[in-house]
């Protein structure tokens, strides 16, 4: 049967079980949108193409599925570049479909033409320009396969207008199983080595990262941890892989990590890192990172191994088969870590947790940390929390104690302000029955504020919590601590009235200016059906602590006026 390129595209998307597209129409994709009119696929119309890519990204993070967005050529495509780089840095599986001028016009500086495959070559896992309708179905299939396999990542498919308009014989739906992914050769041997190292440890520690969540291995990971009773710290991206409410949880490590976590890393004698890439925010001064530890590194991407931190044992593998092998081999050999061997270490960690828990001082102003604590309480710690980037992001990471994976949607690698609001949209679409909250700063929320329109359009019950300090908070903090309080261009006192802004979009707006209003505003916001924007006017010059100054060891944290050194 003869089908148009548009029809073949939708057939291919159906084959991939795509149920939602986030997109924005334009000249080069008019035929696709015309065909869409006849199709049953849900399409969410955003208000900026950056909103489309971040929504697809948020959808993927919350659901574990591939997020898909559709934009037109030229500016439509370039508007997704930030979001593509964002997905690339955090290894999120998204497929970005971009319109393109007709193949005959490519390279002629046509209207709304841009070399998007050239521009995104180094920030996509792979990209394609479909020059021939005969390649279309296969390319879409490949794009999804690449996006979700191995270390996931964004894949862009550029679709020239004439290819979409041409006609060809459609392939019958394949439903072929995905190709087998290569496993780690000698996984058993390496896991036995790892077990030997673990059994010798008196101060073992596990760092869990985003890879465990991407690998959907949270449950197996917890079982492994429980078996050996090894304490766990997490990177920003790994939050939720292991429950914060578990006694073995020792906190997030890194620049704004917990005292107990950074001390644990600095003093452990065995460090097992799973699904972690040792980003500089997590390690700080590399030469001083885990100085006394032998390091086992389990990661799916060989590029991550021995890149930043030297490893004593590397296992290049998807975390699921590796954790399964470790579990099975230790069961078969009846291995365990006796309490008398690591008991003192457990006590030490408990001591550190008690000595310097994450804390803040209360005063007559609303403390941003308090808002997060109350939010955690009122949502029973079970909301999906998207964040923007800055101080609020760190407070959300510190004070919203996550017990489940796929609940903390944050731009870790690229640090993209404006990510949270559209990501929350994607998450709400993926998980319609969950409470979804975007925690934002007053700076970040203005970066993709137009997506309030998307939220209103679809009546998505996204709750926006703005920690409003009238500053670019993280910038101001660095300027206070490292640039002699020279607050250069970080003053955001000229801010819109966020309540009126929400109401302009037909969304309910609430405001709290005093600490005793916080609980009521949160409660009202969470209980009101539909979207709500909550403006919390918080302490203007609050700082995120602990803080590790860049280039210094994790053990040298600042706590405001109190310095703690290992």
């Amino acid at each position, binding site marked *: 049967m003869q089908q148009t390129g548009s029809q073949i595209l939708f057939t291919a998307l159906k084959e991939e079980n795509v149920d939602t597209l986030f997109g924005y129409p334009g000249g080069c994709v008019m035929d696709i949108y015309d065909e869409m009119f006849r199709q049953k696929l849900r399409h969410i119309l955003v208000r900026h193409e950056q909103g489309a890519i971040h929504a697809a990204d948020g959808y993927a993070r919350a659901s574990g599925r591939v997020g898909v967005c559709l934009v037109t050529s030229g500016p439509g495509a370039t508007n997704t570049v930030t979001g593509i780089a964002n997905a690339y840095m955090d290894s999120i599986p998204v497929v970005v479909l971009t319109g393109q001028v007709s193949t005959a016009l490519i390279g002629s500086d046509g209207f709304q033409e841009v070399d998007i495959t050239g521009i995104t*070559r*180094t920030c996509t896992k*792979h990209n394609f*320009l479909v020059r021939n309708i005969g390649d279309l179905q296969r390319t879409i299939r490949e794009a999804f396969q*690449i996006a979700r396999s191995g270390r996931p990542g964004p894949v862009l498919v550029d679709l020239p207008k004439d290819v979409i308009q041409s006609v060809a014989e459609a392939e019958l739906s394949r439903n072929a199983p995905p190709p087998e992914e290569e496993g780690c050769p000698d996984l058993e041997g390496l896991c036995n080595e790892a077990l030997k190292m673990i059994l010798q440890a008196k101060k073992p520690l596990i760092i869990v990262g985003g890879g465990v969540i991407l690998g959907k291995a949270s449950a197996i990971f917890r079982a492994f941890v429980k078996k050996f009773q090894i304490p766990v710290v997490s990177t920003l991206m790994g939050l939720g892989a292991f429950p914060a409410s578990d006694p073995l949880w020792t906190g997030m490590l890194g620049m704004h990590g917990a005292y107990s976590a950074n001390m644990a890393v600095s003093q452990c004698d065995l460090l097992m890192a799973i699904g972690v890439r040792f980003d500089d925010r997590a390690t700080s001064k590399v030469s001083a990172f885990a100085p006394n530890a032998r390091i086992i590194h389990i990661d799916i991407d060989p*590029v991550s191994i*021995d890149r930043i931190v030297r490893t004593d044992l590397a296992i290049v593998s998807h975390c699921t088969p590796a954790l399964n092998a470790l579990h099975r081999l230790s069961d078969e050999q009846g291995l365990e870590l006796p309490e008398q061997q690591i008991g003192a270490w457990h006590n030490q960690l408990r001591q550190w947790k008690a000595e310097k828990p994450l804390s803040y001082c209360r005063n007559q102003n609303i403390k941003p940390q308090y808002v997060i604590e109350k939010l955690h309480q009122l949502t029973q710690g079970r909301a999906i929390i998207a964040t923007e980037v800055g101080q609020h992001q760190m407070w959300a990471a510190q004070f919203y104690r996550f017990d489940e994976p796929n609940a903390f949607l944050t731009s870790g690698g690229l640090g993209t302000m404006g990510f949270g609001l559209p990501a929350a949209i994607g998450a709400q679409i993926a998980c319609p029955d969950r409470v979804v909250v975007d925690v934002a700063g007053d700076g970040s929320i203005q970066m993709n504020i137009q997506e309030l329109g998307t939220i209103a359009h679809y009546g998505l019950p996204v709750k926006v919590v703005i920690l409003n300090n009238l500053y670019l908070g993280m910038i101001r903090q660095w300027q206070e601590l490292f640039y002699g309080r020279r607050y250069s261009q970080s003053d955001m006192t000229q801010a819109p009235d966020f309540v009126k802004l929400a109401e302009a979009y037909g969304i309910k707006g609430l405001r709290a200016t005093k600490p005793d209003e916080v609980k009521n505003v949160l409660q009202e916001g969470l209980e009101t059906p539909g979207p709500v924007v909550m403006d919390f006017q918080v302490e203007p010059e609050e700082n995120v602590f602990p803080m590790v100054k860049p280039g210094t060891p994790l053990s040298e944290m600042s706590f405001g006026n109190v310095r703690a050194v290992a």
Partner: protein
Amino acid sequence: MPVQFKERAISVTVNNRPDVLARIAGTFSARGFNIESISANITRNPAITKIIITTLTTPDTITKVIKQLNRLVDVLEAKRLRRPHAVCREMILARVPLSKEKQAAIRELLDTHGGKTVSLEPGFAVLEFTGDKEELEEILTSLEALGMEDFSRTGVIALERAKP
């Protein structure tokens, strides 16, 4: 320059796609690696291209480069070609003006290095030489002395001496 920095050769076998060279080059530039020389051509299978790249790096960095290349979807295999296990050669074409005085010197240069004349025009000859880097540098110095006007040089190509 620290002793560790050496010119090292990589062999990259890739799918012959229109943008594959751009991808390879992009990986080098995006990750801050340099390309000293590059040579690419199809294999006996026109769908597969082999690219030989030399880069000036430390042993540590070359491992990182190879890993980054192997991660690319269109790269089938990227591997190091280590001297002395691999032969590395380059070729030059050089245009020299012909004159009675220079004739003997040109003949001697060709004989010494096994070069040949590939083009003869009134007053000009294009000479072809192959060899390793050091040899070609010597030849170029001699050619300059002979009034060489212009030359074209390939990238390094390399091959393992025995099946690995």
